């Protein structure tokens, strides 16, 4: 499970603190070093880790903790609060206020865009929407065919123009088609691209400026390492993304990317995907995720009461 090993390690560190009646600066420094290493091992970006540790340390050395009767638990509480800040405060939903809600998927090669387009379509269909998926990937071999297979499996129409080599045109035509057929959600599956590929980033921008999508979602593989920050920053600065979908969390990725993303883009993680089946998509609840990392649903309510 995602975050499992991070969770184990951080909990181990915090448990040592919890029991203590009094905390010295050394105790806190040691704990912070351990947490720092755990976060780094979980692929949280090293700059994000530095900031996080600095904040937690400063707060932990403050009077709020030092004068408390249960200083260890106070530190746990601080870690939890800062972790929630890092992950984002609350669940964020898709905004369906447009007549045709255009959702654009983007991201690196192989991140899971095409599969996730299908998953979103299925989810919306279950909410009584009428999604249409547009095959805007004109580069990858058999990309259209892949999307067609996906669409067929969930009984959602796929718009394509076979042989067309202008992705912007496909997106525009797809929008017309959605209007004509009465679809209220249009999901644009785009080709995978590197964030440093200027020509392809330009293509995305053109699609954006002609359709002005309600949601531009960066699809990011949860196994991504330190580069996640650079990728997210680049996509966010050219595209101004509205959120992130973190894929393949059914692997035991340590999930550090999830913790870094918001810190650099301040954009929420909206969904996580948990497998290759079309139903393997879940909303992302930052607060629950933070508690899960710290294994402390109960502890928190205890502190609240105290």
């Amino acid at each position: 499970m995602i975050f499992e090993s991070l969770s184990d390690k951080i909990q181990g560190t915090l448990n040592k603190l919890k029991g203590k009646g009094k905390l010295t600066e050394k105790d806190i420094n040691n704990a912070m070093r351990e947490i720092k290493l755990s976060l780094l091992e979980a692929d949280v970006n090293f700059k994000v880790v530095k900031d996080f540790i600095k904040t937690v340390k400063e707060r932990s050395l403050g009077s709020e903790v030092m004068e408390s009767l249960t200083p260890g638990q106070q530190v746990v509480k601080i870690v939890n609060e800062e972790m929630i800040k890092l992950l984002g405060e609350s669940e964020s939903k898709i905004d369906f206020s447009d007549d045709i809600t255009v959702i654009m998927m983007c991201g690196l090669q192989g991140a899971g865009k095409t599969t996730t387009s299908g998953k979103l379509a299925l989810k919306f269909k279950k909410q009584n929407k009428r999604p249409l998926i547009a095959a805007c990937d004109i580069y990858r071999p058999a990309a259209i065919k892949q999307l067609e297979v996906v669409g067929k499996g969930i009984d959602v129409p796929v718009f394509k123009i076979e042989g067309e080599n202008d992705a912007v045109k496909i997106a525009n035509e797809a929008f017309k088609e959605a209007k004509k057929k009465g679809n209220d959600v249009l999901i644009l599956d785009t080709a995978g691209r590197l964030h440093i590929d200027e020509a392809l980033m330009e293509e995305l921008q053109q699609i954006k400026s002609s359709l002005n999508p309600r949601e531009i979602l960066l699809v990011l593989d949860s196994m991504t390492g330190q580069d996640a920050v650079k990728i997210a920053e680049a996509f966010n600065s050219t595209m101004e993304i509205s959120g992130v979908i973190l894929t393949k969390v059914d692997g035991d990725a340590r999930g550090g990317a999830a913790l870094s993303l918001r810190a650099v883009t301040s954009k929420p993680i909206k969904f996580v995907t948990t497998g290759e089946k079309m139903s393997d998509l879940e909303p992302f609840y930052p607060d629950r995720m933070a508690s899960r990392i710290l294994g402390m649903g109960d502890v928190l309510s205890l502190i609240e009461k105290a």
Partner: protein
Amino acid sequence: KKTKDEFASKIDSVFSMYTKIDDELLEDLEDILIGSDIGVESTMDIIEHLKNCVKTEKLKTPDEIRIRLKEYLKEIIHTDDETDDSNMKTPTVILIIGVNGVGKTTTIGKLANRYKTMGKSVLVAAGDTFRAAAVEQLQVWCDRAGVELIANKEGSDPAAVIFDSVQAAKSRKADVLICDTAGRLHNKKNLMNELNKIFRVVDKEYDTAFKQVYLVIDSTTGQNGIIQAKTFKEAADIDGIILTKLDGTAKGGIIVPVQKEIGVPVKYVGLGEKIDDLQPFDSNKFVDAIFE
């Protein structure tokens, strides 16, 4: 290439910022190594090694450390059998495995093209019967490379496709048979068992062939790459790693801990989406490029 330039300029700029060796320099180095996905453990080990060098060899200048770092990285990454596929033994069966979306199918297209250009007769097996349009994707690559693809229906048993492909390779006396497999996360037990079944088919049906199992790792992968390597190695004797997508900004530093852990050499690197965007891995070049 972009990847290495960035890594390089960073390491070199760190060294140029310092006039003597102190804790701050080492800390900056630590950040850079970790920031390149080399991982906490390997980074600590590298820093420890450098500290030792400073002590025992009485190193004085940042440049001396720079040289030691470079040597040590080479030592870790280097393996005796750097890729020389020009005189590969035949017949060879190559199995390509890895987690989802890392670039297995694309790499097969590139390899098929490479071997064919060398004058080998190449056959490809569509062992991914699971992913939507996996066969069609591979067919496009085989057409580009001008090699034949052996495929069954989507949803059929992958081991059966491999069986058929082995028979075809034998009867056509193909020099190389390259087998695609479905992407699978290393923690999916049943899928890993399925791999085992595929390996057994090759062993049993083609024991005269020289076998190579290549694990494909995406260079943007973080520390999860270590677990990938470990778990796939449990399922199969991996002969080599193929590091893809090095044309991005990721450093591919994950191969440092991966090699330390499982001691498997990197064979090829993927540098793009075109058919000739594949190069044999050269550890000297790789490390040199980090610093140049």
